[in-house]
């Protein structure tokens, strides 16, 4: 087994690196730059039952070492995603993690049931944490009881393992993790964006048409890292971590904090080749450090493993 291969519920990953949802479309644009089969997996753009235009523009703004977005879950709708986007991705040897969003529990159930049957969808990522839509999304991600109920219902209809994408916009992310674990989640993905805003200093008005947006990029890494560190000690669920990852050291940090795999979002916009580059560099650095397997580093920020981390039995 290669030092980067990772086994997670529903997923055999060649490596623990994948693009994050919404930052990679359905892969087509990035396929101009490299072979998508190099990736551990692909987390595709959120899919809703019906086609959505999303929010008015401007939809993005830059902030110190980060960016705000309020795309508003624009997507071509379930049928189109199944018939075109996922079909197109079948040419690649890469598992797809389908990101599911909706306004009602029924929406989530319908999309989850249908999309989980696509042959290349190996897991679902349930987006209960989008801060940019009025109804649904984050409404499910901030109340433990609704999150638990949603998880149970989606689990019942899904043909593949279910990862719940947690929002950092809560007072206790551990409580949310407990709730979805009780609901039967197979894994967690965290974190979605942090709600923020930017004003045009001259006019005093918000830059983004939606007024507020989700903060991502290197600026949020410390928050994400702390949350993964906390949650990974409290649940047994595997975590796919994201938040500001832009190089192999960021990946190592998240694995050390307790994650099992890592997703790369905003960094794709800065460098379209960032994912294959991280994968290559990650392998090199582990070789240099003489680490047999990436998971030998997992949770070392809090595990009392001493020497064992470097000498796997």
């Amino acid at each position, binding site marked *: 087994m290669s030092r980067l291969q990772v086994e997670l519920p529903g997923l055999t990953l060649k490596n623990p690196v994948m693009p994050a949802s919404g930052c990679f*479309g359905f892969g087509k644009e990035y396929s101009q730059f490299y072979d998508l089969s190099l990736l551990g997996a692909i987390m595709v753009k959120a899919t809703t039952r019906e086609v959505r*235009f999303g929010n008015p523009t401007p939809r993005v703004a830059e902030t110190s070492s980060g960016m705000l977005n309020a795309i508003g879950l624009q997507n071509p709708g379930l049928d189109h995603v199944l018939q075109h986007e996922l079909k197109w991705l079948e040419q690649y040897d890469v598992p797809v993690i389908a990101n599911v969003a909706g306004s009602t529990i029924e929406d989530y159930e319908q999309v989850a049931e249908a999309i989980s049957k696509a042959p290349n969808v190996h897991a679902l990522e349930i987006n209960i944490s989008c801060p940019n839509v009025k109804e649904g999304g984050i409404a499910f991600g901030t109340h433990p009881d609704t999150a638990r109920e949603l998880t149970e219902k989606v689990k019942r209809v899904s043909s593949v393992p279910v990862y719940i994408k947690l929002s950092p916009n809560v007072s206790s992310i551990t409580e949310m993790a407990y709730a979805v674990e009780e609901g039967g989640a197979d894994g967690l993905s965290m974190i979605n964006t942090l709600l923020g805003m930017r004003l045009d200093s001259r006019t005093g008005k918000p830059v983004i048409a939606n007024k507020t947006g989700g903060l991502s990029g290197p600026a949020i890494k410390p928050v994400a890292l702390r949350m993964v560190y906390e949650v990974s000690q409290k649940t047994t669920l595997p975590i796919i971590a994201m938040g500001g990852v832009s190089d192999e050291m960021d990946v190592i940090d998240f694995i050390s904090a307790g994650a099992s795999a890592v997703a790369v979002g905003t960094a794709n916009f800065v460098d379209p080749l960032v994912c294959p580059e991280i994968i290559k560099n990650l392998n090199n650095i582990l070789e240099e450090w003489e680490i047999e397997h990436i998971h030998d580093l997992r949770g070392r920020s809090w595990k009392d493993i001493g020497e064992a981390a470097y000498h796997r039995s």
Partner: protein
Amino acid sequence: MIGQENMKIVSHQEIAANIFELVLEGELTKKMTSPGQFVHLKVTSGNDPLLRRPISICSINQEMNQFTMLYRVSGNGTKVLSERAPGAVVHVLGPLGNGFPDDYLKEGEQALLIGGGIGVPPLYELSKRLVHKGVHVTHILGFQTESDMFYKNEFEKLGETHIATADGTHGVKGFVTDVAEQLSIQPDAYFTCGPSPMLKAVESKYETINGFISMEQRMGCGIGACLACVCHVAGDESGLKYKKVCSDGPVFKSGEVVI
């Protein structure tokens, strides 16, 4: 094909108030074929500024392996860029998007090129190519004030050039459409780039002829993946159809999208 390269700054100078001319050299130039395309610049390495900045290609010199951009210092990113000295490298992703067609008009036909402010630069390479084909070009360039004005001489060498300034310090006082009112020529097509209100005014003034309009929108990826830069399709009542400015545009046919 989109490429990426660390390109060398061969010259960099302020040519008008806060307007810089930047010339970069590198192999990526070979891929630049269409006027009106743009590049996505990482103005400096590191996380601040984080995102790339979209800047139009203003002119392409294949023999020298160089291309030129003109930009206005408007915020932090362009400020940092303006401080980069010749010899330094800038990371370029591009060329991106679809530019102006330079084969839409035939020899002897009339083209009207209308640019506003920092929308003027992409019209320069276009004008050169049209002139090379024997198309007659007329330029209308709009600026806030005389000290903002740039490339007047360069455009005059290619064809008739009219200037409008909002404060009347140079040329006609008012907007590009005020100049257009006074022109006697009947263009066979128009090509325009500038702020949205100007594009709107130009599109409605020339309702009866075909035009090509370059749109501006805030961008994330610049390659069509993030959906930051969408605009509505004209005449679509569902409100669900869209085009991406970065990859379907930035140049659209008149009447194609909602400005």
